[in-house]
Every structure is written in C-alpha cells, then in structure tokens.
C-alpha cells in the first residue's frame, strides 16, 4: 500500500456524555473509494467531520499527507481547500445563484475567477442550463449536484460525502450517484457515508462497517456483503437488505 | 353728625363692596370663592417661592388685590395649577381666572376670553457676557447677527422674526430651562423674554447672564400685554374688567408693579 492520503489513529470524540467515536484507526489510500456503512448514530457523520477538522477530536491523530491536523491550534484553512465535503442537506447558500455558490470560494480563497473551469463542471454534470438559477428553483438532485460542483471547484484531492442521497426523493438518487461514479473514474479519493448498499457494493474499493463508534468490520465489498465475519455486521446487513 | 357721616361712608363702602361681590355672585365655579390658576411651577417675579397663596410676587399680589376689589376676602381665593395647553383646550375649565403671563392675541381671544391687560411687558434681550464681550450691542443691527433662541409657547418668536429679522433662523425650546441650557452650551447667543423674566433668568438661572436691552413697549405695534385668561364666554369678564379699571384708576396696579417689578427699569432701550 502506498503512503495513505488520510490516516486516523485512536480518534475519539464525545458530545457531552455520549461517546460517539471510541478509538478509530483507518488509512485511506490516494484514489481509494471507501464507503462507511452502519446504522444511524454509529458515528459515520462525526467521523467524516473529524477528517476535515470541522469537529475537533478529543484524542488521537488525523494525518493528512503525514501532517497531523488534529493538533490544537493547527491552521485548518489551507487543509480545507484540499478536502471537499458535501452534506446530506446540501447547504447551498440560498441567496446566491448556483454559479455564485460555486464561484465564491475560488474567488475569495484562491483569488481566481475560474469561470471556464466552473462552467465546464456545470456542463459535465448536466447543469449547464441551471447556473443562473437560485437553489430554491432547483430540484433536490440538482441542488446536491451543485453542492458537489461547489466542492470540486476548489480542486480538492479528497472528497468527504456525508449521506448525500439520504435527503433526496428516490427517483433523484440515481443522478447524484452517477456523479460519484464519474469522480471515481477520475481517480478522486473519496470517503462516503451511505445507506445505498447496492451502490457501495458496486463502486467501493473498501467497505467499512461502523457500529457504536468503532470500526466493527472492513474489507472489499464482495466479502463484506456476501460473507460478513461478525454477527453484528450480519444483523445490520440483514436489516437493510431485507 | 360726624358719626352719621362716617356711618354713611362706611355703609357706602360696604354697599360698594357688596355691589362688586354681587357682580361676581353666582358666576364663579364655586359660589363665594374665586378660583385662580397659575403655572406649575409658578416663577419669580410673578409668584415668589411658588407659593401664590402668600400673595408675594406681581401676579399673586394682583390676584389678591383684584379679589378684594371684587369683594372676595383673601381666604375666599383658591389656587389651582394648569399648563398652557390645559388652559386653551376645549371643554370645562377648573378655574375662574388663569394668570400666567398670557399675552393677549386676537387668535387666542377666539377660543378663550381675556380680561383687560394688567401688565404691559417690554420684551427684553438676554445674552451672556462672552457675547457682549464679542461686540453685541443693544441695536437692531447688532442683534440681527446673533443666533436666537425663543420659547415656543410665547409671542417672542414673531417679535424676533418681525422686528429683529435675524440672519439665521432661531432655535425654539419648550421652556426657559432649555433656553439657558442651550445658551450655556453656546448653541444660541440671545433669547427674547418679557423683561421681568429676562432679569430673573439672567440673574438667577444663568452663570454669566446679561440683559442687553429692552424694546420700548409703547413703540411696538402690538405691545405684549398680559391678560387674565377666562373660559370663552365667561360671565365673570365684565366684573374682572371693572375691577381692573378701578385698580388702574386708583393707582393700585401701578403700586403693585412698582413693588414687585421695580428692577425692570434701568435696562437700556434697543435702538
């Protein structure tokens, strides 16, 4: 295995009395696509938020290209440009057009106009006609694709995707998953928390099953889905694949 | 014979008093009592110590002299307090007479009744020592260049606008306290008051107040005359006017004025 892009060691995180992450070790290689699966509350989202410093960890190390970004006082600004994140609820800026949503960060952070690049992204993901629309004029699937474009416009090396299809109507899920397939084909490093088991099985290089704040089992999708070793993995898969 | 004469004179005097008392009989708010309103508070030199019942101060003294002339004993005089607005608003009044330096104007006369004037007030210019040191003089020419302040509810504003015609428009205030504050803040140079008020304000309220000069009241087209304010259509008006005429003829009014507004003389005339 080459040097990992992201490397977590002994990461713990509590909210009040609730310990959400209880010592996570994980390595993510460049270009790898990792799917986090597990019940709601198993810590998937929190883990993603710890990976880009949005949530400070209580203990442990989060190394990005061998730099520990979990050190207190570490300047996360430059790191965040290298890690894009997309949320379940899109979180587009409602007062800006789709284009301005995407163009804001490149202009303010990178100091570049990036017009052609951004227009190319819109075109590539089938939204060329929607650049001038406001978020409330777009469908959920379109909004989520804009959110992905917004993250991509910063040219990240890694994308964190937090259940980005969970808030969508079923008929809109496909168009968003298509976007992810294409990113995978581009060789983007991705960590994806998802409930879409079939999708995970199809595209993931590795599936990580989380349960009660720990990594309960991990492996290639074929093995996890057809021959899980742990009883609780079997029980979880049985409940979602029924 | 002498006794008879004395008795006759006494009875005549008594009859006279009775007659005056009779004039007001049944026309006051409370029979046998004369209810007079003053300001709240009432100011020197019009009323001393805000205590009109002591009869000290020009208006308090005039009030008691008038009451006596009309046949009311001193203890038959009751005092109440009103604001300017209360006095002119429509509806029933709680006084027979209201004395607080009301200038008689034709417009006011439409909504209330005024007695004959009991005082003709010269308008006087109050300023501060620094303004005088800066060259202000009691001439219209000099006054034009000053920044003026006046109290809104007085007739001073038209006087300033018509006679002085200042270069800058005047500032207008609610009362004398605000005028003195503005003058002390250097926001205005001069204010126009009736002379007694100017003297009092300059001497007592201001740190470095000066009464620069007074306008000749007789030279004015409409001299500022104070009248007692009565409800519109008051039956008492003729009695009050008769009594005031008697007080003027007998020199009583001039005597009271000399006693309480003495210092008002000796301020230079504005040319």
């Amino acid at each position: 295995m080459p040097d990992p892009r992201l490397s977590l060691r002994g990461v713990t995180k509590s909210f009040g009395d609730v310990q959400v992450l209880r010592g996570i070790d994980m390595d993510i290689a460049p270009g790898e696509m990792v799917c986090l699966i597990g019940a709601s509350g198993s810590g998937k989202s929190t883990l993603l938020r710890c990976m880009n410093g949005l949530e400070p960890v209580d203990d442990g190390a989060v190394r990005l290209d061998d730099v520990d970004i979990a050190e207190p006082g570490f300047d996360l600004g430059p790191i965040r440009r290298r890690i894009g994140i997309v949320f379940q609820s899109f979180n587009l800026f409602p007062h800006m057009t789709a284009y301005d949503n995407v163009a804001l960060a490149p202009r303010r952070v990178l100091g570049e106009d990036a017009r052609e690049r951004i227009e190319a992204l819109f075109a590539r993901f089938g939204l060329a006609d929607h650049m001038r629309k406001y978020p409330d004029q777009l469908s959920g699937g379109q909004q989520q694709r804009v959110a992905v474009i917004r993250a991509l416009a910063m040219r990240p090396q890694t994308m964190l995707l937090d259940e980005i299809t969970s808030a969508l109507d079923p008929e809109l899920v496909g168009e968003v998953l298509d976007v992810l397939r294409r990113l995978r084909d581009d060789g983007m490093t991705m960590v994806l928390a998802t409930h879409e088991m079939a999708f995970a099985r199809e595209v993931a290089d590795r599936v990580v099953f989380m349960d009660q704040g720990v990594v309960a089992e991990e492996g290639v999708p074929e093995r996890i889905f057809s021959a899980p070793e742990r009883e609780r993995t079997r029980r979880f898969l049985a409940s979602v694949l029924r | 014979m002498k006794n008879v004469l004395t008795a006759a004179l006494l009875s005549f005097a008594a009859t006279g008093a009775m007659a005056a008392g009779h004039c007001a009989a049944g026309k006051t708010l409370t029979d046998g009592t004369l209810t007079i309103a003053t300001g709240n508070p009432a100011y020197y030199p019009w009323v001393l110590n805000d205590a009109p019942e002591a009869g000290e101060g020009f208006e308090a003294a005039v009030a008691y002299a008038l009451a006596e002339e009309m046949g009311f004993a001193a203890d038959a005089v009751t005092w109440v307090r009103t604001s300017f607005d209360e006095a002119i608003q429509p509806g029933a009044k709680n006084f027979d007479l209201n004395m607080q330096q009301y200038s008689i104007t034709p417009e006011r006369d439409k909504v209330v009744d005024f007695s004959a004037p009991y005082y003709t007030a010269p308008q006087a210019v109050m300023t501060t020592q620094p303004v005088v040191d800066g060259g202000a003089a009691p001439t219209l020419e000099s006054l034009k260049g000053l920044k003026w302040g006046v109290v809104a509810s007085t007739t001073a504003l038209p006087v300033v606008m018509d006679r002085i015609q200042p270069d800058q428009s005047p500032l207008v205030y609610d009362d004398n306290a605000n005028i003195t504050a503005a003058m002390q803040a250097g926001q205005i140079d001069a204010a126009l008051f009736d002379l007694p008020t100017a003297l009092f304000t300059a001497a007592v309220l201001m740190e470095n107040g000066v009464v620069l000069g007074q306008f000749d009241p007789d030279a004015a087209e409409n001299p500022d005359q104070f009248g007692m304010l009565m409800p519109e259509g008051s039956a008492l008006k003729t009695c009050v006017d008769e009594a005031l005429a008697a007080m003027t003829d007998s020199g009583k009014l001039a005597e009271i004025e000399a006693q309480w507004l003495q210092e008002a003389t000796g301020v230079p005339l504005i040319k």
Partner: protein
Amino acid sequence: MIAGVSTCVALALVVVLVPLAPGWDAVRASFFDGEVFVRVFPDLLRAFTLDVAIFAWSVPMIFALGLAIALARGNTNPALFPLRIFGAVYVDLFRGIPVVLLVYLVGFGIPGLGLPRPWNSPYIWGTVALVLTYSAYVAEVLRSGIESIHASQRNAAICLGLSERDTMRYVILPQAIRRVVPANMNMLVALQKDVALLSFIGPVEILRQAGIFKSLLANFTPYVAAAVIFLCITVPATRYADYLMNRDRDARS
C-alpha cells in the same frame, strides 16, 4: 363584502354620532379649523423637510454602527472578548435610556463641555443621540438575524476554506439582513417619529412648528395637520413593512 359593509356602518356611526356630542362645536373649532389648516400647512411641510433630512443622514450611521455593534457582540474570538462585553454594555445602556433623556444629555451636555461652533450644533449632537439609541436597537435586530441563520450555512462556508470574515460577509450577513428587513422597517417608522425629539434642543421641525402655531393661534389644528403629513409617510411605510413580513413568512412556510 361583509367587512366593507361593517366598515361603512362603523364610519357612518362615527360621522353621525360624534357631532351630536354637546362639546363637538368647541372641539371642531379647536382641532379641525379649515382656515387654520390651510394657513399652517405649507409651513409645516417646509418644517417636515428638516425631519426628512435628519432621518436621511441618521439612517446610514445607525445601520453602520448597529452592524458594528452586532458583530462585536456576536464574535466568538476569545482574544476579542472585551469587544463582546463592550457590545453587550452598549446595547443594554442605550436601549435602556429614554431617547428624550439622551437627546438632552448629548444635545446640551456635550456642547456644554465647551465645543466651539459649528461643532456644538444641536443638529450634530441631536443626531448623535438618535444614532446611539437606534443603533443599539438595530444591533439587536441584526444579531437576532445572524443567529437565525443555521449553523450548517457557516459550516458549509468554512469547509470551502472561506475565512470567518468572508463567511460573515458573503454568506451569513446577506441572509441575516434580508431576514430582518421587516423588523428594521418598523424601526425606521419609529425613528421617523422620534426625529421630532430633536426639537427639544432647538431645531424647528414639524412638531415644533405645529407647537408654535398652536401657541400663536390657540388652536390644535396645526397638530392635526402635522399628523396628516406624518401619516402620509408612516402608513405606507408600515404597510410596506407588513407586506415584507408576510412575504417572508409565506416564503418560509
């Protein structure tokens, strides 16, 4: 339809019954004298331009200062904690003091310290008093607007690498300000009326001009005329604020 009829009936009752009251003639002469109305109206309108001017130059200062105070109060940087305290004290202080008192205190007090002309002008310091009071109110309105923007908006901006400053400027504030437009409109209507308080320290604006006429003419009609002028401004403004508020509510439901 029913509303229209009942309104007409109510209006008719007022129009018919009020003049039957025994004091009506006196009240009409004092408050609704047409001759007086016509005579004073042009001067009142001229005085009203002063209200409008004071209003116009106060508003930008109120919003600039209000925004600064809101940001000072809302900042979470431990190093800037004193600024946070300052913001809180400022808001408590100037919302707590009656505007009238502040107008006197600032309008007479500060020039009384010995400022030379024209720096002791009641126009300047009266405006300062209004700005102090109203910026405190506006700061609270803006802060509530800022706090009403969901944390996910901030997170999204921060995760894109935007600085705290840019996040506030480009993401949070535009949404927050839009959300509190109706509240601020009501504030402006209140300000328009409070401008008249400057008359206490000298400037002859419309209410003072009406008061002068009242004294000269011993008649309250000038106040009625002033009220008419005020209503011409405040009623449309209030309606507009209501309209914005309703639109905002509809948009969110």
